[in-house]
């Protein structure tokens, strides 16, 4: 076998290996999705969607309170996270020459890779110690996770707005701040909206920070200084429990969560791809 033939064999083999790697990575994806769909679907019934979490030993039960809790928590977190992230993103995009922009951008990137449980403990120390385990603390933690994501996507969306748009407005005599707020922002709104949606999808699935700021909650919303049920956290609690109906609820909750999160992700990504066409 001459040297060139060996090279060709190596070439073919490596390319096959690369595609094999691809398949290996996609197998878990399909395994998880099919598992969640098959096992979760069998849990979904009227009870599932309308009953609150069951007590120990109680049969049946549902995730209605968890859905309510997740929605309220995510909503609260967004109230804090979206404005802060939005404004930070605006600053980074419009004033990126400012000396302070680089450090801000850098630490935003750093924070976005942080373990969410550490954020959770931070909020425990900051808020739970004064107010107690509560939705407020959890919402705070989730908002901190949200901010870097919204900041980055807002900055990128606004940077995509062509300079000519800004220049036209300034030439008309519009001050920079008004240009930014009225003109550039509306030009970037699609990108910003997708960024916000992705951030929401991300925090809806977070359970570690929720665990240490709220803990498990069986009931409905009971006030800002009380915890609330969380779909993501419930999956954890139910999955490690010894009760079969609880485990079934875990799969059902996973299905709801997956539909919500992947639904947002797929929609957002297909929409943004159309922009590039």
């Amino acid at each position, binding site marked *: 076998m001459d*040297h*060139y033939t060996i*090279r*060709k064999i190596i070439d073919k083999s490596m390319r096959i290996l690369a595609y094999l790697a691809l398949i290996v990575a996609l197998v878990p994806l399909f395994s998880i999705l099919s598992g969640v769909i098959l096992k979760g679907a069998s849990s979904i019934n009227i009870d599932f969607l309308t009953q609150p979490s069951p007590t120990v030993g109680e049969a049946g039960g549902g995730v209605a309170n968890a859905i309510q809790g997740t929605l309220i928590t995510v909503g609260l977190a967004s109230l804090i996270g979206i404005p802060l992230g939005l404004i930070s993103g605006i600053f980074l995009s419009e004033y990126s020459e400012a000396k302070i922009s680089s450090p801000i951008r850098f630490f935003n990137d750093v924070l976005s890779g942080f373990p969410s449980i550490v954020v959770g403990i931070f909020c425990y120390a900051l808020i739970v110690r004064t107010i107690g385990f509560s939705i407020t603390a959890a919402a705070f933690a989730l908002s901190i996770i949200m901010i870097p994501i919204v900041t980055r996507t807002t900055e990128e969306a606004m940077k995509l707005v062509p300079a000519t748009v800004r220049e036209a407005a300034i030439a008309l005599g519009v001050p920079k701040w008004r240009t930014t707020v009225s003109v550039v922002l509306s030009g970037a709104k699609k990108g910003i909206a997708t960024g916000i949606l992705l951030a929401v999808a991300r925090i809806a699935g977070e359970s570690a920070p929720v665990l240490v700021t709220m803990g498990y909650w069986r009931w409905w919303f009971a006030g800002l200084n009380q915890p609330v049920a969380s779909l993501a956290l419930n999956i954890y609690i139910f999955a490690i429990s010894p009760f079969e109906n609880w485990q079934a609820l875990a799969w059902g909750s996973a299905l709801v969560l997956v539909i919500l999160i992947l639904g947002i992700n797929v929609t957002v990504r297909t929409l943004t791809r159309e922009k590039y066409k």
Partner: protein
Amino acid sequence: MFYKFEIENLNAWFGSKQVLKNINIKIREKAVTAIIGPSGCGKTTLIRCLNRMHEIVPHARVSGKVLFNGIDIYAEDVDPVQTRRKMGMVFQKPNPFPMMSIYDNVAAGLKLNGVRDKKRLNEVVERSLKMAILWDEVKDDLNKSGASLSGGQQQRLCIARALAVEPEVMLMDEPASALDPIATAKLEVLIRMLAKDYTVVIVTHNMQQAARVSDFTAFLYLGELIEYGSTKDVFENPKNELTEKYITGQFG
């Protein structure tokens, strides 16, 4: 072998856009053939068809024959990789490998072909750098990065790299367009020297360069071969009116 390349009815497309129309040329061996013409006439495409580089671009297509040493390189059973090995190519912008040293740059092709013997590598690297008129300038520090040289030196490094695998042909796509006048002059001297042992095909948008450096000239316009002949004939007695207009600078 009198003709290194015999191009028969060569057509080339980028997607649905046809860039070369029915090209028929015979390229002489051990001579310099220049391909000239205004921007977009297909001269780069033509030279890239010679070493099957055109088709690596997505949606690029070729039809026709290119006989190299008498064998059609576009035949079904011909391996493009081995074809390219027999030809050296130099690009418009010098593209040395910045993460490799000067030595490793020149040796890159040899190592691909399995040459491991240090002595042989040293010999070839030195020989190639000397042929490329770069040896004296870099011999004291061959371990410097390939990217640390000046533009003209980088281009000569790329030529050395191409020469190291002992090709039969040197294909040069506007090799001087990124270089200053002095580096260009050095390069032209080098090209004339290469013609003693290699078949050189050079694409250039600089007519004076073509006149200085080549033995044969092909004039392309909008993908068609308008005129081809010895450089003297093409420049002093162009048969085609279009050729004359281009050469006298009336367009392009």
